[in-house]
C-alpha cells in the first residue's frame, strides 16, 4: 500500500539559552498523506516526535485555552485552529513578537499578565450579598458578549506596536478588553475607580487605533471597540 505523500516545509525559530548564543531558523520537512489536511498544531506535534528538542506550549488543541499563540508566517495566531493548507510554504513559525523568548516558541508572558492584573480583573461589588443570584437582565448581560470570551493568548497585545514600545505602561488590547468587561458589567460597583485608574496618558490613550489586535484575535473579539467605549466613558465622566 503506497499512499501518495506530500512534503510540507517549515522554518522554525530556535533558541535554547543553554546552547545557542542567539536565535536561528531551523528547517524541517514533514511528510503527510497528499489528500490530508490538519491543524498546524498537529503538524508541529509530529515535528516534535522527530526532534524532541523543539519546545512550544499547547493544551486544549481546540482554540479555547490560549496556549499555542505564535507568529505564523508573520501573523499572530493559534496553531491549533490554523489549517495547514491555509499557509504558504515554507511555513515560518516564530514566537509572539515583543516578549522575551525563554526558549524556541515559548515567550515570557510576565509583562502581559502584569497588565492584565493591573486592571483589577475581578468583579467588585460592595453592596450586601443577596441570598440568591444578583439579577441581571438579558440586555445587561449581552453587553459582556464579545468581552468575557477572551482566552488570554496574547496574540493581540503582541501584535500591537504600542504594546511593543510600552509593555510596562500601556495596558494593551487584552487587558483593556477585560477592563471594559468589568466596566460594562451591571453588577460591578467600582466603575468610577476603574475609570479613574485609566485616565493617564499611557494606560488607555497609548492606543493609536492601529487595529492589529482586531485583525489577529483568534476569537474574533474587538479590543479597539472596547477601548473606544472606555474612552467614551472617560469623556462622559469628565476626567
Amino acid at each position, binding site marked *: 500500500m503506497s499512499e501518495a505523500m506530500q512534503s510540507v516545509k517549515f522554518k522554525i525559530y530556535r533558541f*535554547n*539559552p*543553554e*546552547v545557542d548564543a542567539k536565535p536561528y531558523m531551523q528547517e524541517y520537512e514533514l511528510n503527510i498523506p497528499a489528500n490530508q489536511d490538519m491543524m498546524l498544531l498537529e503538524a508541529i506535534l509530529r515535528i*516534535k*516526535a522527530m*526532534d*524532541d*528538542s523543539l*519546545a*512550544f*506550549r*499547547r*493544551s*486544549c*488543541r*481546540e*482554540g*479555547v*485555552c*490560549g*496556549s499555542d499563540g505564535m507568529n505564523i508566517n508573520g501573523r499572530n495566531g493559534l496553531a491549533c*485552529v490554523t489549517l495547514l493548507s491555509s499557509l504558504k510554504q515554507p511555513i515560518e513559525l516564530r514566537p509572539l513578537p515583543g516578549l522575551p523568548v*525563554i*526558549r*524556541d516558541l*515559548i515567550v515570557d*508572558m510576565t509583562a502581559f*499578565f502584569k497588565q492584565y*492584573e493591573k486592571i*483589577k*480583573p*475581578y*468583579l467588585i*461589588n460592595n453592596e450586601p*450579598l443577596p*441570598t*440568591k*443570584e*444578583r*439579577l*441581571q*437582565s*438579558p440586555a*445587561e*448581560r449581552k453587553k*459582556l*458578549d464579545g468581552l*468575557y*470570551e477572551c*482566552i*488570554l493568548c496574547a496574540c493581540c497585545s503582541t501584535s500591537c506596536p504600542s504594546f511593543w514600545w510600552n509593555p510596562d505602561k500601556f495596558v494593551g488590547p487584552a487587558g483593556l478588553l477585560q477592563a471594559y468587561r*468589568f466596566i460594562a*458589567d451591571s*453588577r*460591578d460597583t467600582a466603575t468610577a475607580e476603574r475609570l479613574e485608574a485609566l485616565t493617564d496618558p499611557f494606560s488607555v490613550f497609548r492606543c493609536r487605533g492601529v487595529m492589529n489586535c482586531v485583525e489577529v484575535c483568534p*476569537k*474574533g473579539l474587538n479590543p479597539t471597540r472596547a477601548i473606544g467605549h472606555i474612552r467614551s466613558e472617560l469623556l462622559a465622566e469628565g476626567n
Partner: protein
Amino acid sequence: MTLATYTFDAIIIGAGGAGMRAALALAESGSQVALVSKVFPTRSHTVSAQGGITCALGNVHPDDWRWHMYDTVKGSDYIGDQDCIEYMCEVGPQVVYELEHMGLPFSRLDNGRIYQRPFGGQSKDFGGEQAARTCAAADRTGHALLHTLYQRNIAEKTNVFSEWYALDLVKATDGQGFAGILAIHIETGETVLMRARAIIFATGGAGRIYQSTTNALINTGDGIGMAIRAGLPIQDIEMWQFHPTGIAGAGVLVTEGCRGEGGYLINKDGERFMERYAPHAKDLASRDVVARAMSLELRAGNGYDINGVKCVKLKLDHLGADLINSRLPGIRELSITFAGVDPIREPIPVVPTCHYMMGGIPTNRLGQVVTVDYKGNDQVLEGLYAVGECACVSVHGANRLGGNSLLDLVVFGRAAGLDVKEKLHELPLKDVGDAEIEAALSRLNRWDNAREGESVSQIRFEMQKTMQEDFGVFRTGEHMQEGLDKLLQLQQRLHHAAFQDHSRVFNTSRIEALELDNLMATALATAHAAIYRTESRGAHSREDFPKRDDANWLTHTVYHGESHRMSKRAVNMKPLHMKPFEPKERVY
C-alpha cells in the same frame, strides 16, 4: 542531596476548577497556599467545559435538589456514594450563587435570573418529566468559570506556581503520610521540595490514555500516577465516559447542551434513532446510553462515512440562526473550524469520544483521601485530599451526568479547602529525610540519565491505540486480556525509553516523558479494573457480561498499584437526611 525547600500551609496540585476553588477557600482565610500548576491556570482543561453546571435553582420550573440527587444516583447506575451525591446536590445552589457573586457571566432569563437548560438524564419529581437544571454561560460555561475563579484568586493574591510540574509525593520520615511534594520549575528545569501540612490533588483527568479524546493534551493523569506510586488505591478506574458528540476525526467536544436546546442525532437515513433506544428521554438519555446506541447504529451500518470515518450527525439547523448564535456560539465556531460545517445550515458529524474519568483517588465527602485495608475498611489519610476529576468521591459512579462535573469541581474543591482551613492548626508539618527525597527523585534520575532508548512518542502512540481498540465503548474479556498484555509489554519498554534533549530550560520533552509514566499507570489500572468487573454497568459495557449484576457488583472496585491487586469497596447507601435510593432497572 540538598534541594531548595519551600514551606506552606497547603499545597494544591492543579489549577483547574477544583484546585482554584480550593485555593480560594484557603486564600480567603489568609493561609499560605501554593497553587502548583503545570500550565498557566486558565489553560487548564476546565476551560473546555461547555454546556453548564447543574443544580436545582428552580429558575425555569419548580425544582428540588432531591430530584437532582435522584437523577445523579440513577445516572451513576447506583454505584455513586449517596452521602456525597446528597451533599453535592444540596449545597449546589449555594455554590453556584457564590460563583455568580464572584462575577461569573451566566446567561440570563428575562426575569434576570440565571439561565438553565435541559441536559441528559434530568427529571422532575424523581423520574418524571424532563427537567431544565443546567446553569449556563452560553456554551462557554467552563471558560467563564475557570476565568472567574482565576480572577478571584488574583484578588485574593494566591501564590500561583504557574508552569511548575509536580513530580511526586514525598513520604514523611515517620512513615505516616506525606510531608510534601517534589516539583520541577519548568522554566529553569530545577527541582524543589515543597513542604506543607496539607496537600490537595486537583490534577484532573487522563483522557489522553485514549487515541480519540475530547481531553486536552495536558490530561495525563498525573495525580493518578503519583497516587499509585505513593501506594494509594485507585477506585472505579474502569469507568470511562464516552461522550456521544465528539466531532468526527477531530475529537473536539460538542456540548450535550446542543441536544438540550433541541438538537438531535440522525443516522444516514435521516432517522432520529434515539427514539428507538430511549423512547422517553430520546436524545437526552444518559451519555452512556446514547454513546452505546450510536455505536450500535454504526455497527449496523447506519452511519455516514466521511473520508473513511464512520459517524452519525447532530442536527441543529432546525433551531434557527438566532438560537445558535446566542446559546451555542462556541459550538458553531468549533464546528466550522474542525468539521468545516456551519451548524446553522448542516448537521455536525459526531462520534462517541473518550471524555471523562469517573474513577480516581477515593475520597470521602470532605475530599479527604481514603485508603482501603485488606479487610475492606476505609482509613482516612489526614492531610491528603483529592478533588475534581482525579478524585473518585464518588458522585458519578459508573456514569457521570452532563453538568455534574463543573458542580463536582466547585463543591468538592470548596469542601476540601474549607476542611483544610479548619484542620490546619492540628495538622503537623512532617519531617522529610534524604532517603524519602531520593526515593521520589529516582524516576526523574532514571529519565535524566537515559541517553539511548525508544522514544516517548512511539510508546505513547501504541498505548493510546491499545486503549482505543480494547477498552472502548464495548468491551470483552478476551480483547481486554490481549490489551492488558500489550500494555504490560509497553510498560517494560517504557522502563528503557529515553528522550534525546537533556537541556534544562523549558524542556517539554522531559515533562512529556514524566507524563507518560502517569498515563501508563492510569492505562494499566483501567485495564486491570475493567477485566475485574464482570458485569455491565454505566459506562462499562461488557459483551461477555451484558447484564448488570447487583448481587456481585453493586460495589466500587479498588486497584492497588504495587501488586496490580483488585479489591472491592462498599458503595455508600446512607445519605444523611433521607432514605437511600434503591437500585432499579435503569431506563430512559
